């Protein structure tokens, strides 16, 4: 399809090339490292779950034990598999034994490497089979039930109590939601462990736990049957437990995952090295599980100005695309984020928003672009807010976005009430239906405000990317090029959990995923 914005394909290619270069540089860095979270993830996939008497998750107990003994550089898998071979215990028993201090994995005699690797690969395959099964299950359900048309209606539930969340989520599905995201409690992303079990106490959101995933998945499957539409479940694999949550999601058939190292770096002050390494593995899991990821560029516009910083969003999307490709994630699963965040008082702001949304759509034609509603400029005037959201919805359908995260008129006030969500869905459905084919109909004046705006943003983004190639990605973060937030490579939370891989690093999951996803092998150029 011809560009409605007369975007220069060569310029787009230049942007992509620059982002590819940035991602290649980072990929080389990432491949040399593992993290405590990646290793816990391997344990979870091996079947380690539950908490010890103090409530500490067993994956943490096991990984910490190995880490403290300095054994993480080779991968926890070797120690764990060896432990199982040596003790003959099942995953749960062995983990408990480690938790109780009865077994110290690094002190057990080591089976021959080949034997360990063979057993490790076999057990890994079992875990991956479960994920394959989930993926097939999802495909069958969608084939049988169907799904809503794009833009998907995405809403959040955030009561803090998984059981209230279920009520709200089911109501939302009946009202027409296609994707339900369970927002996490404030602070969870900074926890270096994943809470356990069903939870009913969270602030501004509900803890992401495997049990909560399971409860919500069951509820949404149930309501999906009733409404005759597959309802997607979304959560967040970001923060210090990024890959673990990706694994939990893969195991519980989540469909969408917020997953973006840059978000954690900029908005949670998580150490860049840590979360970039975590991200690579988590994206492989998401890719394999057929999970759509959502990236967090929209958030930049909550701290930086949406008009001035528009190009940083595009630049970051280019980078995120390349990161994703290097983790084997197909374009069809890349929910690149952007947002309708310009000051509503801006003359012709609607035109700029249209330009941005159309530009993103054209540059990433296969990606289920995630479009975020106005948040920063929402006020307590719920009536005006509802209209801001309406314009956002109109741009969404007119530019054929993939995922429309619905704005709530009460955005400035509270996490959504049951009828806030209802009114948001009602409005979006009205507009999407009433303007269904608007995108096919509209063209823009070739030298007009919209076209010129898009071209300028693209130019600026490419210039920024090429500058980042020059100064390096870590330096770009340090300079505050994204979201006006400055983050140093060494700073932030969780850096202690980054470990340089040994040449004999063993992680049968990554090994297998690289094959499955057509990625080149697990090089270690230490």
């Amino acid at each position: 399809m011809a560009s409605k914005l007369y975007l220069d394909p060569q310029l787009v290619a230049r942007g992509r090339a620059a982002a590819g270069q940035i991602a290649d540089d980072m990929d080389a860095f990432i491949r040399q490292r593992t993290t405590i979270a990646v290793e816990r993830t391997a344990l979870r996939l091996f079947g380690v779950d539950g908490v010890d008497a103090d409530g500490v998750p067993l994956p943490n107990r096991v990984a910490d034990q190995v880490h403290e003994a300095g054994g993480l550089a080779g991968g926890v898998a070797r120690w764990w598999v060896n432990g199982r071979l040596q003790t003959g215990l099942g995953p749960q028993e062995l983990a408990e034994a480690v938790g109780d201090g009865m077994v110290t994995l690094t002190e057990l005699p080591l089976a021959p490497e080949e034997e360990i690797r063979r057993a490790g690969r076999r057990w890994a395959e079992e875990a991956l089979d479960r994920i394959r099964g989930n993926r097939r299950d999802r495909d069958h359900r969608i084939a049988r039930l169907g799904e809503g048309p794009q833009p998907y209606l995405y809403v959040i539930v955030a009561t803090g109590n998984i059981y209230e969340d279920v009520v709200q989520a089911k109501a939302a599905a009946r009202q027409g939601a296609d994707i339900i995201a369970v927002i996490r409690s404030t602070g969870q992303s900074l926890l270096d462990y994943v809470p356990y079990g069903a939870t009913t106490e969270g602030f501004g959101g509900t803890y992401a736990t495997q049990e909560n995933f399971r409860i919500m998945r069951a509820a949404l499957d149930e309501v999906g049957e009733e409404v005759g539409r597959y309802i997607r479940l979304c959560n967040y694999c970001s923060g210090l437990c990024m890959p673990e949550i990706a694994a939990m999601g893969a195991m519980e058939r989540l469909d969408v995952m917020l997953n973006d190292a840059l978000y954690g770096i900029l908005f949670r002050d998580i150490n860049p090295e840590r979360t970039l390494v975590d991200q690579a593995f988590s994206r492989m899991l998401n890719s394999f599980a057929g999970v759509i990821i959502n990236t967090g560029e929209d958030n930049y516009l909550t701290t930086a100005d949406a008009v001035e910083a528009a190009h940083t969003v595009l630049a970051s999307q280019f980078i995120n695309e390349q990161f994703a490709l290097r983790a084997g994630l197909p374009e069809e699963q890349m929910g690149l984020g952007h947002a309708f965040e310009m000051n509503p008082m801006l003359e012709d702001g609607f035109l700029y928003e249209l330009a941005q949304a159309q530009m993103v759509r054209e540059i990433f034609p296969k990606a289920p672009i995630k479009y975020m509603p106005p948040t920063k400029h929402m006020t307590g005037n719920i009536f005006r807010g509802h209209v801001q959201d309406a314009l956002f919805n109109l741009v969404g359908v007119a530019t054929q976005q993939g995922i429309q995260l619905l704005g709530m008129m009460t955005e400035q006030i509270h996490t959504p009430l049951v009828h806030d969500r209802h009114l948001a869905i009602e409005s979006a459905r009205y507009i999407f239906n009433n303007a269904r084919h608007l995108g096919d109909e509209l063209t823009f004046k070739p030298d007009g405000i919209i076209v010129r705006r898009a071209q300028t943003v693209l130019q600026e983004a490419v210039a920024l990317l090429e500058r980042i190639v020059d100064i390096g990605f870590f330096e770009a973060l340090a300079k505050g090029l994204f979201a006006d937030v400055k983050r140093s490579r060494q700073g932030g939370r969780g850096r202690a959990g980054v470990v340089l891989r040994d040449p004999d690093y063993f992680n049968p999951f990554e090994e297998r995923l690289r094959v499955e996803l057509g990625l080149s092998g697990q090089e270690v150029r230490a």
Partner: protein
Amino acid sequence: MNPVVDYRTKIARPNLHQLRPYGDTMDDGKVQLSFSLPVPDGAEAVEAARQLATKMGLRDAAVVHHEDIGEGFSFFVLYGNCQHAVDYANIHVPKVDVERMDFYAVNAFIRDRIGRKVVILGACTGTDAHTVGIDAIMNMKGYNGEYGLERYPEIDAYNLGSQVENAELVRKAIELRADALLVSQVVTQKDVHLHNLAHLVDLLEAQGLRERLVLVAGGPRITHELALELGYDAGFGPGTLAPEVASFVVQEMVRRGLA
């Protein structure tokens, strides 16, 4: 793996005897309010708005928006948690309580149980010029896919249109020997509809006609309960379709021995 907890067993249930609004947690009482005050915006106005909401029984009333809207008025949006509760389990709302028949059944019923054509007059009365509502019930083409009464072979339907004075309606009722009057009222400002509707009942009673007619009111702000209070036999609100009205009229005629 643990079996999935049946979330249903964990969900709070409403207390139907002490029913409260629900925002995102059972019984939180969450309510949204908006209004204007005839004072300029400012800290005192905001406090006045908060106090008002508190008097209405809202705990933790919060003014989430306040704005000057000119001429010494200010506008407010509030949220709060309503402390009042109602005994939902014991609410009994009077309902038009007849068997709902369709087009064919109504006509058959008239043939079998009344044995002559039923004469029905419809009008939008007083200065009210809104015909769309009464037309929806009366006109051939009907509304929302349901024929209007004019299409019913066993009904002689006369749609007098709008801005019909009550006296004129009564005159026509006598002239055409009406079995039922259907009165529409759409404009409700300053309760003009209540006066109008009550006035018609007075006229009919004065003429000794009230008992010989089925008297029905309808309109966007009419409820069955209100109609009963005003001395009508039934009231119909938004979304009414002709068959409901016809079903009521013919069954009421039989019940009252007007057939």
